[in-house]
C-alpha cells in the first residue's frame, strides 16, 4: 500500500507542477507585455470577462487578456488535481477512494453551478 501511495503522489505532483508552471508562464507573459508596452489592450478600468472576449484578446496578444487566460488556467489546476486523483485511485484498484474522490468532484461541480445560479 505504501508504494502505491508513493506513485499516486508523484503522479499528482508532476501533473500539477506542469499545470501550475504553464499557467504561471502565461500570466508572466501577460505581465511582461503589459510592462513593456505600457498598455493593457483595453480602455482604462476595463477588462474582458466572457470566454469569447478573452480568447479573441489572447490571440491578439492583448496583455490583460493574456493575464486572464493564465489566471483561468490557474483556477483549473485544483480541479485538475481532483480529477486526476480519481483516475489514479482507479488505477490502484482503490474503489473506496475512487468513490470518495468522485463524490467530491460531483459536489464541486454542483457548487460551481449553484454559484452561477446565485450571481
Amino acid at each position: 500500500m505504501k508504494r502505491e501511495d508513493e506513485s499516486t503522489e508523484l503522479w499528482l505532483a508532476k501533473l500539477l507542477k506542469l499545470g501550475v508552471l504553464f499557467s504561471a508562464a502565461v500570466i508572466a507573459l501577460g505581465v511582461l507585455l503589459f510592462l513593456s508596452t505600457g498598455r493593457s489592450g483595453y480602455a482604462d478600468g476595463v477588462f474582458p470577462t466572457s470566454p469569447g472576449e478573452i480568447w479573441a484578446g489572447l490571440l491578439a496578444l492583448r496583455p490583460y487578456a493574456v493575464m486572464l487566460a493564465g489566471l483561468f488556467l490557474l483556477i483549473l489546476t485544483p480541479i485538475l488535481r481532483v480529477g486526476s486523483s480519481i483516475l489514479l485511485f482507479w488505477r490502484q484498484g482503490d474503489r473506496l477512494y475512487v468513490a470518495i474522490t468522485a463524490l467530491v468532484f460531483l459536489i464541486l461541480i454542483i457548487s460551481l453551478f449553484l454559484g452561477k445560479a446565485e450571481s
Partner: protein
Amino acid sequence: MASVFFIFLIAIAAGFLGSLLGLGGGIIMTPALTLLFHVDIRYAIGASIISVIATSSGAAITYLKDHLTNVRIGMFLEIGTTLGAITGAFLSGLVDTRYLYLIFGMLMLYSAAMMLRKAGSDLPQDVVTHPAAERLRLNSSYYDKGLGREVPYRVAGVYGGLGMMYVAGTISGLLGIGSGAFKVMGMDLFMKLPMKVSSATSNFMIGVTAAASAGVYFFRGDINPGIAAPVALGVLMGAVVGTRVMQRMKSRVIRIIFVPVLVVVSVQMIVKGVLMG
C-alpha cells in the same frame, strides 16, 4: 505600474506565510490591497481567491513529493468542506452574517488558546487510531527534514475533524475568510495530526474549495487582471520558498507562528462583525 511591483512584493510575503501555515494568504492580501492600495473590496476579494489557489497549487508542488500532504485525508475531508460550502451558499441570504463573524471570531480565539496550551509539544504523542481512520486507511508517515527521520503518525477524531471541515466550508461559503485556519485547527485539535501534515494537507484542500467558487468570481468580472496577475505570480513564488523553509522547520516553531496569526484573523472577524452593526 509601480503599484504592480509593490503588490507583487506583498504577494510574495502572503504566499510564504500562507504555505507555511496552511492558510490562503487572504488574511494578508485583502487588508493590504484595500488599505494600502485602495483597491475596491470586490477586486480585493477576487484577488484573494486567486491568492488562495496560488498558495495551494504552489505549495502542492513541493508537499506532494515529500509526502507531507496526506491525499486520502485531504480527499475524505473535502466531502465535509464542499458540502459545507453548498450549505453556506444556501444560508447566505437567510442569516445575519454580522453574528456569524462574532461567533466564529470568538470560536477561533478559543481555539487559538487551546493550541497555545500545546505550544511546547513538537509531535503528537500516544495517539489512538480512530476505528474509521483504520477503515479509511488514513494512518501514514512522512519524512521530516527538520528532524532528519521518517515520522509515522496515527489519526484520531475522524468524525470531529469531518464536522470541523463542514463548519470550515460553511463559513468560507458565507464569509469568504478563515477556512484555512479552521481546517488546520480541525486536523490539529481533533485528528491529532503532526503540525506539518495538518498545514500541508490544509494547503492541498483550500485550493480545491476556492476553485469551486472562483469560476463565479471570474465570469462576474471580480478578477481584475491588473491586480490578480501580480498577486498570482508573487504568491506562487512565495509559496514555493515557504514550503521549502517549512520542511526544515521544527513543528513547534510553526505552531508558535500559527497562534498569533490565528489571533489576528479572529480579531479581524470580530471587528468586521462589530462594524457591520
